[in-house]
């Protein structure tokens, strides 16, 4: 199995979690996510090139596509893409903590989106183990 085939399974799992978040009206904020994605892909390009350059990890040349960013296989960027979609989606699927004194002023107007007691959003939990 090639690196891309392996990535396809995990990216599909990420897509399912993101779909669950959208369907339960707990979607992440896509513009913020896009900003984070650009920064994360840029840092991944730097970090991955250093890691591979100094020999921390190596790849079977027969199982990668041969597309590189510097010395980093393009496939490695699937980790960053998965992280930036999966983790915020999971965060929003999880019910927010109960209000405390320090957050009471900031929490009141977020209740329509994040309050676990809102019936329309209560179906969002428990779908993150894809």
């Amino acid at each position, binding site marked *: 199995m090639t690196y891309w085939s392996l990535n396809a399974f995990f990216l599909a799992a990420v897509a399912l979690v993101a779909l669950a978040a959208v369907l339960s009206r707990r979607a992440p904020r896509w513009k913020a996510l896009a900003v984070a994605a650009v920064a994360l892909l840029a840092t991944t390009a730097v970090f991955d090139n250093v890691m591979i350059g100094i020999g*921390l990890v*190596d790849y079977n040349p027969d199982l990668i596509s041969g597309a590189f960013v510097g010395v980093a296989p393009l496939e490695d960027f699937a980790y960053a893409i*998965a992280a930036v979609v999966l*983790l915020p989606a*999971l*965060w929003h699927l999880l019910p927010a903590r109960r209000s405390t004194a320090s957050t009471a002023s900031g929490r009141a107007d977020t209740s329509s989106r994040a309050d676990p007691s809102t019936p329309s959003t209560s179906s969002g939990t428990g779908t993150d183990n894809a």
Partner: protein
Amino acid sequence: MGLIYLAALLVALTGMVMLDRRFTLFFWADARRAAIVMIAGLAFFVTWDLLGIGLGIFFRGETAFMTGLQIAPELPVEELFFLALLVYVTMNLYAAASRIRSLSTSKRTLRQAQGPGEAQGPRQGPGERA
């Protein structure tokens, strides 16, 4: 035993914790949700790694920069810290980007409530709308 890579990862993780604490981004925004996202993210990416290693796609390089300790064949202990860093960077970036967006979209409200320049939103988790 090389500690350079592990030390570099710990320095980077410490930086993420400092940013989180200063700007209330992830664990300081909602410790319970952050812990679940962190553990689920680690489980997801370690599984991805183990399958990639099992399929012979990538493997640990022989280098003096790592301790040589492995939590599974070809899976160095450093990888756990790397993946924790990936999760932490992602969520800090997403929370920070969400903060910028929410400040720009609720500018009018903030300007009325407080003077410009001291517009500090309430404690918010990643992506929660102000």
